[in-house]
């Protein structure tokens, strides 16, 4: 987007610093909201990293065997037990919703109001399905298998504690995302970005960049899920 003459930069690391520290904006052509979301996600990454590193230390230091994920998270379908079936479906749904989100962003920038809105709704439904399946998984673990935050029949008691805390924290992120997806789908259908209607709280105008910013958040939540998936279900 930026039409500046890069050839005038000094060479090497000095040029890098020159570029970064240049006039008015460090990230050329990046709107405020987008830059903010990136920095927020960096901060949020630290939160999830702390959770997962804590999980690793608990797992590395436990003297009681850690429960075997494939069995704990298996589902019995028509008499055969399939390991990780539910999780595979959940992951598929969430990753797919990232795809629909990306399409929504594309239609947003094309100012295709209808399709943008519908793909936002599709994304939100994907998120809802994910949260619903997570609720099913939780209830199965709690009521059927007897897993509690303070103990479980399979092994180390930290298993349940970390599982409910980390997936709960991630599920909260997904739920917040779903709420915002519905809010913005409504805004798109109503044409707020075309008419310049002001936000209820901020009393500021907004535009389709907001959809991309929302998309950043949504992709981040999906990416985090990949790590949670790896650490809880595959390890």
């Amino acid at each position, binding site marked *: *987007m*930026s*039409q*500046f*003459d890069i050839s*005038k930069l000094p060479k090497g690391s000095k040029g890098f610093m*020159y570029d*970064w*520290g*240049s*006039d*008015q*904006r*460090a*990230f*050329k*052509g*990046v*709107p*405020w*909201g987008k*830059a*903010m979301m990136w*920095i*927020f996600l*960096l*901060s*949020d990454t*630290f*939160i999830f*990293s*702390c*959770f997962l590193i*804590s999980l690793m*230390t*608990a797992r590395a*230091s*436990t*003297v*009681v065997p850690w429960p075997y994920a494939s069995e704990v998270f298996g589902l019995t379908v028509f008499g055969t037990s399939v390991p990780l079936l539910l999780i595979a479906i959940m992951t598929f749904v969430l990753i797919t919703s990232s795809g629909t989100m990306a399409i929504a962003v594309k239609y947003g920038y094309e100012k295709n109001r209808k399709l943008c809105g519908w793909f936002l709704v599709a994304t939100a439904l994907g998120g809802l399905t994910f949260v619903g399946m997570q609720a099913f998984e939780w209830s199965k673990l709690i009521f059927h298998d007897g897993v509690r*935050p*303070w103990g479980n029949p399979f092994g*180390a*008691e*930290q298993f*349940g*504690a*970390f599982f409910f*805390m980390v997936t709960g*924290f991630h599920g909260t992120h997904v739920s917040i995302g779903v709420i915002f997806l519905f809010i913005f789908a409504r805004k798109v259908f109503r044409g707020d970005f075309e008419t310049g209607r002001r936000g209820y*709280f*901020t*009393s*500021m*105008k*907004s*535009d389709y*960049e*907001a959809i991309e910013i929302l998309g950043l958040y949504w992709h981040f939540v999906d990416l985090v899920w990949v790590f949670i998936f790896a650490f809880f279900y595959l390890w």
Partner: protein
Amino acid sequence: MSDEYTENKLEAKAADSSSGSYAPTAETVPAKESPDQELYHAKSFWTKWVFSQDAKVIGVQYALTATAIGFIGLILSWGMRLQLGFPETFSFLGPATYYQSVTMHGMIMVIYLLTALFLGGFGNYLIPLMVGARDMVFPYVNMVSYWMFLIAVLVLIASFFVPGGPTGAGWTLYPPQAILPGTPGSEMGIVLMLISLSLFVIGFTMGGLNYVITVLQARTRGMTLMRMPLTIWGIFTATVLALLAFPALFVACIMMTLDNLLGTSFFMPEIFSMGEKLEYGGGSPILFQHLFWFFGHPEVYIVALPAFGIVSDLISVHARKNIFGYRMMVWAIVIIGALSFIVWAHHMYVSGMNPWFGFFFATTTLIIAVPTAIKVYNWVLTLWRGNIHLTIPMLFSLGFIVTFVNGGITGLFLGNVIIDVPLSDTYFVVAHFHMVMGIAPLMVVFGAIYHWYPLITGRHLNQTLGKIHFWVTFVGAYAIYFPMHYLGFIGVPRRYFEMYDSPYMTSGVGLNQFITVAALIVGFTQFLFLYNIFTSWYKGEKSERNPWKANSLEWHTPDYPPTHGNFGKELPVVYRWPYDFSVPGSDKEYIPQDVAPSQVPTAKAETT
């Protein structure tokens, strides 16, 4: 939020008018890159002064709230000192009260006073003004940030009134003792503390995103990063640290809350209490220490870096000389910030670490002394042959340098494993960190308040009271903390409620009484300062525009004190750094940042 399409047009214009380069030269400054910020214009009293979205008002709100809770922290320290100086004299001080005072004093001072005051208070007030923005980039989020902070403070205060009182676990809140019976406040106090901290982190994140993005993306024309006042560099880097360090505290708080309320065992090992085996088992208390100090050490620099930045500006302005080694100062701030993330376990030398771990963390800790020492040299060299005006901000700045060097040098002692182990948990540690992150940053806070008070209110603080405030605080701080180093050397452990007839204390009894008297006097002087702030608000001597003859943008707003929108119709254009004092060849004593080179033809051009 800016519109993509208008932006393209603006940039096309920029490319035409500024010869294709996007770095400002001495005379030309590239055209505007983004359209003017759309501001929220408050109409009523409530939206103007209470639920305000104006960063200046929010900054003052932050500062007043932080000061209010800070004075509670001060009074708590009196309780501790009375007990230590005159044990068995005051019936209202039992062991529980003592530990609760210690804990709440520590937490309040570090987080709710210093962090909130530097970043929320000075950050909000100064960032938009100093980088030439009309406001923070997300005023609404900024407002919510303050109200979250206020709720966090109220929850903290509420913990004084619940059954069992506030937590007495020590400000580090180490489990398992923090949540087990026997520790004061293990019923409700600790939960409220953890909730309050979590709320603080959430509120801070909202504010912090604002500060970072305003500095990175919303500067005025010509304001490159290397033309920003060091104040902004300090606050900016500290905010980045906070955004990356607070998550660890947040996670630790959530996990401990769950341990407490839900019976999980994240931090709780197998443990006996009152002869009975508890339900807990298998958790790691050391994990909490790692999480806490991964936050806790950057926190030291979250408080120190804004102080470094602000004091650089105070020294430069009041010594009428440019800051020595500006680029070096910026790099030192950034390097200190980066290093602060890999030193945390030097708080845990006695927790039982692998010795190689200690070796690593001692090395990184001592490396931090290098950029820090560069900064101290640069402050001294800025003063060297400067035209030093002994104004109150200058006095406090000088006090800061001396105190910081003192506290820094004892830090070298404690950074070494072999010296730290015998000194661990003694009063030497207490003296060290009070010098380096208590008194030193507070000196800057005071200096900064005397410096910027005229900007905020249009009036000066009372100078006589100010001088008394400085001298009593400065001398008193040394009267309090110098003897503590000695107490530490003879082995007096910290956090003990009473030493009884311990042989340690044969030579320490009189010292403790002396420290207590000094602490009471210094504390009283802070109330004098508070009195000064409130009376000068309407009775103080009127300040003329730019009373300190500073160059940075906040003093050159069309309205003085600055009003809503900060800069009137047109945003200023910046042609130089803020340190053009006594420029060779110029007939002006100082050249503000928004003066074009053509207006001062004889002055040597600045090349930063």
